[in-house]
């Protein structure tokens, strides 16, 4: 879908870069408030009938053309990421909906303590906002995306009623949680942005196909192309797909004026705007800001502190899997939406580290995925192959450890001196090492996961101490804060350097908590959009 040339030449109020989780939310909110909003998205609209989940060859498609790692997928709309200096590879999707197309839609919230880690634990920095300030935007986002879940979780503050009841646990889920019950440890059914019943515009209930991470054929899994974007377009927002941004442009005073981009036919274009919102994720946003260096911003846009691209946080995942003696059809039901445990979430310094971790319970998939080492090592080749494959198929359950990865300035996204995308735009390069605190967290989690799996009856436990393809959560590379010398944006997501530049993706995270970040990213995007509506009417033409 492409806007007309006439429209692209008009100055818009707000230009949003990226149509994913945060870009969709911000665009809809601003368009509904009467702003003239245009979004540039380098990917395209997706047709659910063409998702990997709809193909008989879905195991091949999932591991290739629909692989979450852009360096594996290598679509025309993807850009390469040099990850040779990182033990974690980036995982993302480029298209309308962004990475919500391929996410598992497991949607826990930050805890109140996550916003106060400096005060409580003496590490990193406090956020300039609190859980309570964000709560109303979490609720608004839940309503639009649609949350299945249930209140009463003792590990979290009370919440507004969920839109839908929880997804079924399944016999495999019951088996796994039995270990936690025996040990007296916390577990709770996941909040998930997956319909347990019809909800939203033309969105069915989940049919438990088990393929939600390959794009949801049923439109039961929430992604912003089917939630926020229909609202945004109805309110007059426009989106140009196949539009790859080269740089954010600025005037002599250093204010943002729009973006130079390459359209889907390869034409160089410029879109002028009164303000720009960056929503290109924790790698794409710093890449673009660094690619936008100019006379007025010689170190890159909004980078007077030199902090753009620094403090990269992932959630390094350990994966602990168990093979159970029972056949449980573990390919049925959403892959990662059974439940979670936050028994070890809050700091207990007697453990030898600060902060904590979440366990996200996982099912497993089909024979090609199992053979190729889904959640563990590949099934050995040779004489023992068939016995081992049959042992694992339908019987492997796993626990992903999401540990809180604290910010460190040496973990960075910068521009690769040689690697470029297909349009010759410098590509991002990752430099990342796992901290001792994060390693200690993961090791602690591995020990406890083994206990839980054994208590549940698993017979063959396998530990991946850090999954390489696990960089879903891209955070911290343009952090927010009250001090312009120590942060890139203020508490509203507005650049300290450029008053008409905003950032709404995971780049602004001060710390990463120990949960999947998307509900927090979207709540922050809505909050920034709300700030613009309330305080920046000057940006409306």
């Amino acid at each position: 879908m492409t806007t007309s040339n006439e429209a692209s030449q008009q100055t818009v109020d707000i230009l949003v870069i990226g149509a994913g989780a945060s870009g969709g939310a911000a665009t809809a909110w601003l368009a509904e408030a009467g702003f003239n909003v245009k979004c540039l998205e380098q990917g395209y609209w997706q047709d659910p009938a063409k998702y990997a989940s709809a193909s008989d060859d879905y195991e091949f498609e999932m591991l290739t053309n629909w692989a979450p790692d852009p360096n594996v997928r290598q679509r025309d709309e993807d850009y390469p990421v040099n990850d040779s200096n990182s033990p974690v590879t980036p995982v993302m999707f480029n298209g309308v909906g962004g990475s919500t197309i391929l996410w598992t839609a497991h949607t826990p919230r930050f805890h109140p303590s996550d916003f106060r880690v400096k005060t409580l634990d003496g590490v990193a920095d406090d956020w300039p906002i609190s859980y309570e300030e964000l709560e109303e935007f979490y609720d608004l986002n839940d309503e639009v995306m649609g949350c299945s879940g249930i209140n009463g979780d003792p590990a979290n503050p009370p919440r507004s009623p969920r839109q839908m009841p929880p997804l079924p646990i399944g016999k495999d889920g019951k088996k796994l949680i039995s270990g936690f019950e025996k040990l007296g440890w916390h577990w709770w059914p996941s909040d998930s942005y997956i319909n347990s019943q019809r909800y939203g515009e033309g969105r069915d209930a989940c049919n438990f196909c088990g393929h939600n991470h390959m794009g949801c054929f049923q439109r039961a899994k929430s992604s912003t192309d089917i939630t926020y974007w229909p609202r945004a377009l109805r309110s007059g927002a426009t989106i140009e797909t196949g539009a790859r941004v080269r740089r954010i442009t600025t005037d002599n005073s250093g204010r943002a004026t729009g973006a130079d981009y390459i359209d889907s036919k390869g034409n160089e274009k410029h879109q002028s705007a009164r303000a720009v919102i960056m929503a290109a994720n924790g790698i794409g946003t710093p890449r673009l800001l660094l690619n936008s260096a100019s006379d007025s911003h010689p170190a890159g846009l909004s980078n007077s502190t030199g902090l753009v691209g620094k403090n990269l946080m992932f959630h390094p995942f350990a994966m602990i899997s168990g093979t159970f003696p029972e056949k449980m059809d573990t390919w049925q039901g959403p892959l990662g939406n059974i439940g979670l445990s936050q028994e070890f979430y809050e700091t207990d310094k007697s453990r030898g580290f600060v902060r904590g971790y979440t366990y996200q319970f996982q099912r497993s998939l089909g024979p090609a995925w199992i053979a190729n080492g889904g959640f563990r090592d590949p099934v050995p080749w040779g004489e023992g192959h068939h016995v081992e494959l049959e042992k694992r198929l339908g019987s492997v359950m796993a626990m992903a450890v999401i540990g809180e990865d604290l910010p460190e300035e040496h973990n960075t996204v910068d521009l690769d001196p040689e690697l470029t995308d297909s349009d010759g735009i410098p590509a991002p390069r990752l430099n990342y090492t796992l901290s001792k605190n994060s390693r200690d967290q993961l090791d602690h989690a591995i020990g406890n996961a083994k206990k839980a799996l054994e208590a549940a009856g698993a017979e063959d436990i396998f530990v991946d101490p850090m999954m390489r393809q696990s960089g879903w959560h891209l955070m911290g590379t343009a952090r927010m804060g009250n001090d312009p010398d120590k942060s890139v944006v203020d508490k509203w997501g507005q650049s300290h350097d450029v008053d008409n530049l905003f950032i709404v993706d995971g780049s602004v995270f001060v710390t990463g908590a120990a949960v999947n970040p998307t509900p927090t990213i979207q709540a922050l995007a809505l909050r920034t959009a709300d700030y613009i509506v309330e305080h920046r009417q000057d940006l409306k033409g």
Partner: protein
Amino acid sequence: MINETSRMNINEDLLAAILDRLIPAVDDVPSAGKMGITAEIVRLSGQQARFQGIFTKAMQTFESANSEFVLLDVESQDDAIRNFESKEPGLFNSLLTISYIVYYKDTRVHKRIGWSGRTPQPEGNTMEPWDDSILETQRKREPFWRKI
């Protein structure tokens, strides 16, 4: 689109011999090299970015070090594969991955392991509905999130 250059450079007899050792015969399903899946492996490896180049390189590297592979006895073939796996893990991985993918696409294999082998869309699967009673123990627990 098939990468014809890659296809021309692949020794499919060699590939079949390797497949026979990677995935042996079981029950009424022949070993992978005798299933006629080599052409599909070559086709897919030329079609998708993940395997383009690396699969061809894997086969050529293997062949250059094991030109007489098809003539060896099975123990020696296994030794040659293990040696390749040890010396060229990245190349070996690409070969093993695409071999497993294509093998487990085959209807004969599906029938044997009881796998439907087709997308579950749109009917999906059936699961027991949510049962609130499983939260009985957890609901008795006092809130333990850290208040600030």
